[in-house]
């Protein structure tokens, strides 16, 4: 319940940061026209601040954050980002198999036939379809 309530406070704080820092610094000032660049963003941010505050005061619904699962999800997100970085510097042909191998090993897959399918055959199939058949460049 506390987490649920705090999520409203967090939303309101995000709204305030957007209103006083992000919107003024990342929109251009225009003094003509009916709908200026900051008009709609400001309206949406006011909505977020008001609704977030209401939720903080009168919380409804539930919020369940399992920190163990969230930690593991963060690990997989990190692996995904690392795979993206690897593809960026060394290309798809190295990045994709390494990404698949890391994910499958961490999950606990040890059967060689499935590892072979995921690490070699799937990236090769994608390369065949995209690069060879469709002539579209891969990273």
């Amino acid at each position: 319940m506390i987490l649920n309530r705090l999520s409203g406070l967090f939303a309101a704080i995000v709204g305030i940061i957007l209103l006083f820092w992000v919107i003024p610094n990342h929109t251009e000032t225009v003094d003509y026209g009916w709908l200026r660049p900051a008009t709609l963003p400001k309206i949406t941010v006011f909505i977020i601040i008001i609704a977030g505050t209401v939720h903080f005061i009168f919380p409804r619904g539930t919020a369940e954050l399992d920190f163990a699962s969230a930690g593991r999800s963060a690990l997989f997100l990190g692996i995904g980002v690392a795979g993206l970085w690897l593809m960026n510097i060394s290309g798809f042909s190295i990045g994709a198999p390494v990404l698949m191998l890391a994910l499958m090993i961490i999950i606990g897959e040890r059967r060689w036939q499935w590892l072979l399918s995921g690490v070699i055959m799937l990236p090769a199939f994608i390369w065949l379809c995209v690069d060879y058949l469709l002539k579209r460049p891969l990273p």
Partner: protein
Amino acid sequence: MIDLNIILAGFADAFTLYNLFFVWFGILIGQLVGAVPGVGPVMAMAIAIPFTFGLDPLPAIGFLVGVNKGGLVGGAIPAILINTPGTPDAAATTLDGYPMTKKGQPEKATKMALYASVTGDAFSDIVLITGAPLIATVALKMGPIEIFALMIFAFSIIAGLVGDSMAKGIVTAGLGLFCATIGLDPENSTPRFIFGHFELYDGVPLVSMALGMLAVAEIFRRLSLIRGNIGAAVIVPKSQKKADRRVSWTEFWACKYTILRGSIIGTIMGAIPGLDSSAAAFMSYATAKQASKDPDSFGKGNIHGIAATESANSSVSGANLIPLLTLGIPGNIAAALIISALMIHGIQPGPLLFKEQGQLIYGLFCSLLMANVLNLFSGLVGLRLWTKVIKAPESIIFPAALLLCMIGVYLATGGLFGVAVMFIFALLGYIMNALGYSVIVFVIAFFLGERVELSLSQSLNIIDGDLKILLNHPVALVLFALALISVYWFGLKSKKKITAKNSKA
């Protein structure tokens, strides 16, 4: 008045093995690419257009139409089986499709998606064939003020999807709308919130947002749950009854009003240029939920939820051809690709098309109807294949889905920046899911946001401070009134019902 001879000649042109083959081939490609997250039929059509140069106009257009229609069915498959929509259009199908899979009914869910999709598609094709010129004339009366009113009406329907906390739903809708304002503003074309990344000039890529929030966040959640025993991605009980594998006629017929409602919503949205099928699917879902005697079962594996979304998103495709063929205005990207293919083949879409190329157009109509039948039969075979694939271990299904999402987004956005954006939205989607904020409301608000701002900007310029001008737009006034009614109907009344039910319990 078109001569009956021309109609029959057109149908005869279309009904050849040669033409049938290209339509069918297009459907197979469409179903395949639709089922691969991030790739989608639009990209397949764009790639395929140069290959149609050597074909006659009818098989060429029939092939492209086949890819588009096949993609609509294909997109629902991963949405239902692994909670990962193949195309953004299928996002709403995850709501009840995946819970049915979790209940051990993946085949039933995918079959219902196929039947509803083909029915909705056939409905809009029949409307196209019988009433295209009339509908196009009405649709063109929808100016910026009417479009803005329609957008407000669509937003009001979100009230039915916010779940158990209205405040959380409003925060989420506000956040989705805010994210939609990233990029150039529509009135002055000045960049907003791009943080030095010129890739964001066109806004946050839709495919990055949709796949990140809906697919990748779910993939990370599923990966985090695998500990020790590695099972199949989808577990179907061996003792499963036949009734859990198929959709009986009684079940299909019970969804007739849901499918009809979805088809009408999709056809109306499709006939208006610029509105997309995702909005139609969510509107149809919200109305089906509200009309249901058991709205609480929606989101927990109600077959009506799948029927509502799939009939609506598929009926948009036929209706998109209404402004295209009658007025030469493409309703969405797929229609724009078809218009370009028509022009490459020397055909100028527009008011004179029916007069000058009547035989070709009726041939195209016949191809559309053939495509629906072929889509149904190819889909039935394809679904068996996909439901077998999905029984592979989750240790390969989910990493493979992640890699396919990355490559799909890379191809769709033309660079790895789009993939990075996808990961950011995956993180946001994961946090929102955990804290009980509706990801679906965010996605709808994002989908509608750009169009809302554009139509609001145009409307304000038309009105120019004189609100009396609104009296000259009765359709807009009716839509504003409907928006107010739907906020009461979908939001406040539903909440009262839930509160009353809870207090009784």
